[in-house]
Every structure is written in C-alpha cells, then in structure tokens.
C-alpha cells in the first residue's frame, strides 16, 4: 500500500523529517512531494477535464506526477502551515486539482451531494502547523480536511500542531495519528 505526502512546509523542518521517517516505517512505497519546489498551475475552470480530456488537466505541470502517485495510493497526507484557518497557497495549488480524482457525475453520500470517486476510497490525513495557537483556526482547518474527505469519499483524520511544541510531543501526536493507517 502506498503513501503520498504533500508537504507544503516552508523549508527544511523537523516535523516533515519526522513524518517522513514514521511513514517509511509504515510503507516502503512513499512519495514525498515538497510542493514549494513544484510547478503547479492554477485551475482556470476551463472544463476540459470533464469530457474533452476526462480526469486529466490539459496544463503541462508537475501535478501529473502527483496524481499518478495519488491514484494508486491508499493514504494521502497533507502537511502545511495553517493559513487563514485552512491551507496556504503552496498546498492549495495541488489540492485544487483533487477535482481530477472525481467523476463529473453526482451521487449522495452521508446526506450530501458529491461527485463519485474516480480512484476509490483512500485515507486523507491533514496535519496543520500553527505559529500561534488558535482553537478557532484549528477547528476551521480540521473542518476543511473533513470537507475534502467528504468530497473525495475518503476516511479522514486531522491534527493541528503548534510549531513551538516540544518535538517529543509532536512525535507522539504523529504516532497516534498514524495508528491504524495502512
């Protein structure tokens, strides 16, 4: 079973390193994408991925590499600083293309209208990192992960870490989060 990490942390940091180390213990099939270095063009809502080129964006950028890994993965991990109670642009540039993981048709799941998943169910894990603790923004981040999971018909887990927390504590939180994954 393979794992994809979409890492939007700014520069080298011990949280990314620790997460990668723990994930490698879970699976040898790990794709770790450092998004800050990747060229991903914004969605222009052109609609071509609906019927002209079903499930594939016509733009030539690094997102295709991520989507090949995501399509065959069992677990997708989003790691990013919390920005405006959600994802920073460095992560959102990839998340906007999650629409390609869904079909253009509709269904109802858990009392909500959604698009059926193109590649089946997966586990979505959201890890946010805050500079300053804010319960309200933490809840907002978690709700965003939950909504992404609802849209993808994924299982999900999420946590928000404080950058100033002790690394041992962070390790424990990551370990707890990864229990039962894969």
């Amino acid at each position: 079973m393979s794992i994809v990490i979409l890492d939007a942390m700014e520069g080298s940091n011990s949280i990314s390193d620790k997460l990668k180390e723990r994930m490698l213990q879970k699976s040898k099939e790990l794709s770790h994408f450092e998004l800050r270095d990747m060229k991903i063009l914004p969605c222009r809502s052109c609609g071509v991925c609906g019927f002209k080129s079903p499930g594939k964006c016509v733009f030539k950028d690094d997102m295709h590499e991520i989507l090949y890994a995501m399509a065959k993965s069992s677990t997708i991990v989003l790691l990013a600083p919390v920005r405006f109670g959600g994802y920073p642009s460095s992560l959102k540039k990839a998340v906007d293309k999650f629409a390609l993981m869904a079909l253009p048709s509709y269904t109802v799941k858990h009392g909500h209208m959604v698009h059926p998943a193109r590649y089946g169910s997966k586990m979505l894990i959201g890890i946010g990192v805050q500079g300053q603790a804010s319960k309200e923004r933490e809840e907002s981040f978690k709700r965003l992960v939950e909504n992404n999971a609802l849209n993808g018909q994924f299982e999900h887990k999420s946590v928000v870490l404080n950058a100033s927390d002790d690394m041992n504590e962070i390790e424990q939180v990551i370990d707890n989060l990864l229990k039962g994954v894969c």
Partner: protein
Amino acid sequence: MSGKKLLLLNGSPRKSGTSYSFARTMKQLAESFGNDVEIIHAIDYFDGKEKIEHLSQLIAQNDIIAMSAPVYADFLPYHDIWLLEKLTEECAKELKGKAFFAVGQCGFPDITRIEPLIDACRFFAEDTGMNWLGGLAYGGGPMINGALLEDIGKKGEKITSGFRLALENVFKGEKISIDAQKCITMDIPPIMYWPLVIFMNQMTKKQAREAGNVDYTKKVYLE
C-alpha cells in the same frame, strides 16, 4: 448609505462566470445607492497582468473591500489565497481599518460547504486589522453559470434582494444580516438530493454523448 467607495474582487479565474455575475449585480445596486464601485479580477494579479502596487493604491482609495469567489476544493481557489497572502505581507498598512465582506458560491446546494471559504476571509480580515462585516453563501452557482441575475427570473430576483439587504447593512457599517442570507438560500431539502442527482446525471450523460460518447469514468492516472 451613499458616497462610499467599494472595491469588488472577482475571485474566479473566469471573468464572466457566476462570481463575476454576483459582483456585477452588487456593483449596480451599490451605484444605485450613490456609491462608487470598481470590479477587479484577482487572477490578473496572479498572472502578473496587474501589479500588487496597483491593488495597494486601489485599496487605499476605497472604504470597503469585498471578495466574490467560487469554492474550489472546499476553500478559496489557489490564486485567491496567493493574493490574500501577498496583501497580508505587502499591503497591511492600506488594509487596516477598511471594511471587508465576502460572497462565496459553490456547485452543491448545501451552503455549509462554503463556510471554510467565508471563514478564511474572516481570518484574513482579523490578520490585517480590517473590519469584518460578514459573508453570504450561495449553493448552486453552476446552475446560474454566469447568467445575469436579471435574466433568470425569480431566482435572480431573490439573490438580488439578498444582495440589496446585505449592501444596506454594509454601507451603514453593520454586519450582514441573517435576512440577507435567507433571501439567497435555496431551500432544497436533502430528501430531494436523489431526484436532483438523477436529473444532473442525465445532463452529465448528455454532455458525454455530445463530446463524442467519451468515457468520463476513465482512470487516466492508472493507465
């Protein structure tokens, strides 16, 4: 309620889609109250067609700033977050003290799906010392598909009356009222979702036939 300056940011990459149609109606209403309104496109700043310094000057000249945006993957689109990050970094002085509100719209009827977008705008206002006046959420944007609100009958009239109420609040410096939200909320009970899904899937199949009987379920990234 008159004599104010409102700057409306169209947060959609489409320059004539539903978010723009909403901004256009708000512009007409606000101007009818005697205010000056300008609409700009966030994507032009991302694409480098316009400079952030230009936006900084516009912000300084206006009393109220607003964002009209679609929900992409449950949040503001990438280029809008990029712009809000840029503004936070580079235009903090100009933004401080200005009023800010947001209008979000998404493809599904359930407006709770728009809350993270509205919250993001509220947190942006908090971070920059702006005066947050609230947000409006519209579920079912693609059904409008950029049409002018005056051309879509009762639905357009309801949305327009919601915007009118919201703008009356905004120009008095008040938070947008729940009545404005009620005007624009489409009351589709969840029990009606399945019939709606069946109808929309027929439309999907029709589009696929028109595109040359394409298999829209292809797993292209596993091939």
